[in-house]
């Protein structure tokens, strides 16, 4: 439960000055995507990461440390606070970056249109550094910034690297099912200006996969990804069974090479008891791929199944109760479950303008 810790008691520690940059910034360009890598030392438990903006539309920060890290605040070039973690720690979710999940955190900014555009100047992201007991501590934070230059936030391409675990690419049932599901995924995204550029690879990775970030294989896998690809690992089982059939590394997911830089999907859970893909299975599998990668691009469920937690978007119904939510949001791609009646399920292929905007603001959507 250490992940639930929040150092509220120490939040009043005095803030010190500007960030301590340890290394020179390494900068690389790949088309519309710039990558800057550098390290920052925290002071009094906060690492301050400067983000120089000059015409870019969005940025993604992946901060990694030997301690637990989470984004605490974002300041614009005028010093105005534009995000504070506590505002998004209740029952509306904007970004997983504010949650103390582990030794890395991922922030994509801006998330929504109402978050405004990136004005030119120096933005600052404050990253809290916390020990396992929940207290602020000091450590070096490695920062990888990805900055998107592409000005078109209504038409974008997502590169998906689909990697089959050991032997699965050679299984014709699996490979045909995955390719058909990817076609459905493209069909779901198309009306929203989202195109998919999918490539396929075989691998020797285990067919039983751990959660993202909980296997050394995931770090190895991430090393081979390009800077703008989302990796989808096709496994047979996740965590040794059928409890999980698709899981994203984080919300949003990183474009850096960390162990959580992937979505893991179980082909077997999506094929069902007969081990083959019917037309209905393919449709649902494609929607599952689009749903899980949607998480990776920053989308939350519009409502959680307790019916009292929602995403931060104004145009996804703040429904309350199962019937109300199934009626209002049951066809939404990000609804937490498919609405089914034993024999068939409602198509879930709808995105609101707000959800579409989040998807296009994902820094990997180019």
């Amino acid at each position, binding site marked *: 439960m250490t*992940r*639930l810790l*929040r150092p509220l008691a120490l939040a009043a520690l005095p803030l010190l000055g500007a960030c301590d940059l340890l290394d020179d910034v390494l900068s690389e360009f790949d088309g519309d995507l710039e990558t800057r890598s550098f390290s920052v030392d925290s002071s009094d438990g906060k690492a301050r990461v400067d983000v120089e903006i000059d015409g870019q539309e969005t940025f993604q920060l992946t901060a990694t440390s030997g301690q637990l890290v989470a984004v605490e605040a974002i300041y614009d070039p005028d010093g105005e606070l534009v995000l504070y973690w506590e505002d998004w*720690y*209740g*029952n*509306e979710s904007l970004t*997983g970056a504010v*949650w*103390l*999940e582990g030794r890395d955190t991922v922030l994509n900014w801006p998330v929504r249109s109402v978050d405004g555009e990136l004005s030119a100047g120096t933005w600052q992201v404050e990253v809290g550094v916390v020990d396992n007991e929940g207290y602020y501590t000091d450590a070096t934070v490695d920062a990888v910034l990805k900055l998107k230059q592409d000005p078109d936030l209504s038409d974008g391409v997502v590169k998906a690297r689909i990697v089959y675990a050991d032997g699965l690419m050679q299984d014709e049932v699996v490979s045909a099912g995955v390719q058909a599901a990817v076609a459905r995924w493209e069909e779901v995204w198309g009306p929203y200006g989202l195109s998919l550029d999918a490539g396929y690879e075989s691998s020797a990775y285990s067919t039983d996969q751990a*959660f993202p970030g909980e296997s050394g294989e995931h770090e190895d896998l991430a090393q081979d990804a390009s800077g703008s690809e989302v990796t989808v690992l096709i496994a*047979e*089982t996740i965590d*040794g*069974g*059928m*409890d*999980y*059939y698709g*899981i*994203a*590394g*984080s*919300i949003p997911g990183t474009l850096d090479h960390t162990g959580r830089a992937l979505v893991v999907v179980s082909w*077997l*859970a*999506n*094929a*069902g*008891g*007969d*081990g*083959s893909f019917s037309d*209905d*299975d393919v449709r*649902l599998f494609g929607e*599952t791929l689009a749903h899980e990668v949607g*998480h990776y691009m920053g989308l939350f469920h519009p409502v*959680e*199944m*307790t019916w009292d*937690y*929602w995403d931060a978007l104004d145009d996804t*119904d*703040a429904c309350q109760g199962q*019937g109300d939510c*199934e*009626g209002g949001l*049951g066809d939404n791609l990000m609804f*937490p*479950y*498919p*609405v*089914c*009646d*034993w*024999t*068939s399920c*409602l198509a879930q292929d709808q995105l609101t303008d707000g959800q579409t905007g989040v998807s296009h603001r994902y820094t990997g959507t180019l």
Partner: protein
Amino acid sequence: MITSLLLALACNGGKVPPAQAGVVDAGLPPTPAELLAQQAPGAAAEPLAPTDAGYAVYRALSVRDPEPTCAEVEALSPTPVETLREVVDRAQQPPWAGMRAANCLVQGHGAEVQADLVAWVGGADTRGLALLVLDQLDLLPEDVALAVATAALAGPHAADASARVPKSRHPALQALVP
């Protein structure tokens, strides 16, 4: 993502969602079958009339995320093994509902459902269930695992079994594949 969700659920800040303007219909919400019928009139197949417990378990197992635990699911039925069997045998969509039900049977009731497991690994149209069992042989009592593996190696999924049985930690099972 799962931990993110748990964090979100654990940290309720007490905010209240905005009231829905203009909602005047106080009637019952549409059922899944009604929603499906609206989507494709005439296309929805007749449901197979699940038992109440079967439907409750099926609903719990249909969730995308967060995933339910077997203990949570089984608490929904006074006869969990029978109910899980019902979901395996009769629920057609989503595909993971039946697979998760089968998973709970394998992980918690292996000895009791040995005949089912042997049938799954021997059925030509149950390759998915066969793989589920073969991937988890070591969760079964050894004598059950041995019976299941032996049947699998003699059945239509022998190739799948030959690749998985030797991975068992039990020497008796490893010895089945020279």
